[in-house]
């Protein structure tokens, strides 16, 4: 089977994220990284491939993002993806969830994947939704937050936590699955794989190459608009103690609890 993994380039966790007040979009300058949640999706693909329960011909990393996003693809390939696809076009700038999901589905369509894997969330957008949007466009069943996934008889057996406890779900292929971060411990790439990543095939596509209707993406295609940005309601800052001398720290904690009559 063929597995496509959707990956995204996001600002590095150490970068203070901010919204550009002129465009109302995330300021994407500064250090960037492969979305950490997506490394779990890549690891899932590799484990299916290595597990041998079903032959996997190819693992393909797919992203939509600016030129710099090739670095996220290189990281995905260094981790073990066989090749990658990069959708990039000025027309895509400013796409909301509706537009992004449509565009990603259009790039995935010609790949005819048996399984599409995603991370549980993008570290910058925190939308939790792209998987289910892509799935409906591709006319495939989908499930998010999967923390256990087994392949047997050409079907997936998935477990995930929903509102009332753990659900076990059997999903026929082809399917779209978003994995939770508890599903596995992602591996680190070898130095050799990092060096070789740039040599693996990378297919760069513009919207026209993917048959994307440019009226359905970017700002014109987006169905939501940010009207204003406001600070959250002011909350009184809590007190902070740095633990230098633990006995002293504990004394302070006990005094604090005492003051509130919690002991």
């Amino acid at each position, binding site marked *: 089977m063929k597995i496509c993994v959707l990956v995204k380039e996001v600002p590095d966790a150490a970068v203070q994220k901010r919204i550009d007040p002129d465009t109302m979009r995330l300021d994407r300058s500064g250090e960037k990284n492969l979305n950490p949640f997506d490394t779990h999706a890549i690891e899932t693909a590799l484990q299916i491939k290595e597990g041998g329960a079903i032959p996997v011909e190819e693992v393909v990393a797919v992203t939509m993002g600016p030129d710099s996003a090739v670095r996220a693809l290189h990281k995905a390939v260094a981790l073990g993806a066989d090749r990658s696809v990069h959708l990039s076009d000025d027309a895509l700038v400013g796409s909301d969830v509706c537009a992004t999901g449509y565009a990603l589905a259009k790039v995935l369509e010609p790949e005819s994947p048996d399984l599409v894997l995603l991370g549980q969330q993008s570290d910058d957008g925190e939308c*939790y939704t792209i998987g289910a949007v892509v799935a409906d466009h591709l006319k495939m*069943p989908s499930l998010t937050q999967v923390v256990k996934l087994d392949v047997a008889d050409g079907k997936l057996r998935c477990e995930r936590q929903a509102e009332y406890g753990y659900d076990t779900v059997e999903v026929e292929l082809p399917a779209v699955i978003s994995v939770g971060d508890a599903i596995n411990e992602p591996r680190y790439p070898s130095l050799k794989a990092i060096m070789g990543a740039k040599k693996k095939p990378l297919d760069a596509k513009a919207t026209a190459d993917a048959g994307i209707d440019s009226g359905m993406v970017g700002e014109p295609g987006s169905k939501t608009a940010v009207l204003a*940005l406001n600070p959250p309601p002011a909350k009184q800052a809590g007190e*902070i103690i740095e*633990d230098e001398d*633990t006995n002293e720290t504990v004394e302070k904690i006990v005094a604090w*609890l005492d003051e509130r009559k919690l002991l």
Partner: protein
Amino acid sequence: MAGILVYALHDGEGNFNKNALGAISKAAELGGELGGEAAALVVGDVADDACASLGNYGAAKVYRAKDVPEGLAPPIVDAMAKVIQDEGFGYALFGGGLLGFEIGAGLTARLSAGVTMEVTEVKVSDGKLVAERPILQDSQIADVGYVAEPGIIIGRLNAFDANETGGSAEVVDVDVELSPWSSKAKLIQRGEQRGADVNIEDAEILVGGGRGLGAADGFKLCEELAESMGGAVAATRAVVDAGWYPYAAQIGQTGKTVAPKLYLAAGISGAIQHKVGMQGSESILAINKDPNAPIFEFSDLGVVGDLHKIVPKLTEAIKARRG
């Protein structure tokens, strides 16, 4: 008339989810301002009485899709899309919860509609709904409007309170044709409880443990501390998924909502999905070795340090103090 359709999630035995009831109340309030009505969609063979009782929270009408199974999103996307299109609803509203995210996302694709998620408040502006959506780890709140109808709004857990106003809803059965791919996922088991059945909701003091405990064994530290204060132990999803602690002790979006007098978080980062389940606590004390952990943004006392050093000594000190 911009009506609002709410998905009324239930447990399969006719008990509606508290967050779904909150969303119905919110829809009724907004519908009043918009000049449209609030309605609910119920899937599965739920009794007339139970469906009609949603009127008590403000639903004027309840659409019931008897043959559509509860518990997985794709078939419910079919049902919601049909009712929205046939009846001309302007908005779909979901209370906090995992299925709401999935169904809302599916509808976004199906109806080519705008979607907002983790919404904490919805208001009316110029006859349209505007969603307040916290972004960048709650450091800013974006007011998001919809370019066209329908608009999809996925609420944050506990964002909307259920209000009982009295009244009974008209129940209308709808036939839904399922998409071919909607029946390709099947629930084998729903709502399995893993681990011991512990009670955390009645505790006045809760010690919450997270991945920072390092291993399942680390929970001993929390248990001893809780015992010294006469409290109970709670957990994050990360450690429950890892099998370190029972599901019944989990706080957050897919766990419990608590509001004890004291919530003491040990080795918990303070992710939004955890925060929504405990931010109503009277006092929050956090111990975390990372000074940038989000939990410090909403704790009353933050202790930056190694919990393995601090917690055992704290337990001793409290025991000594309480004699």
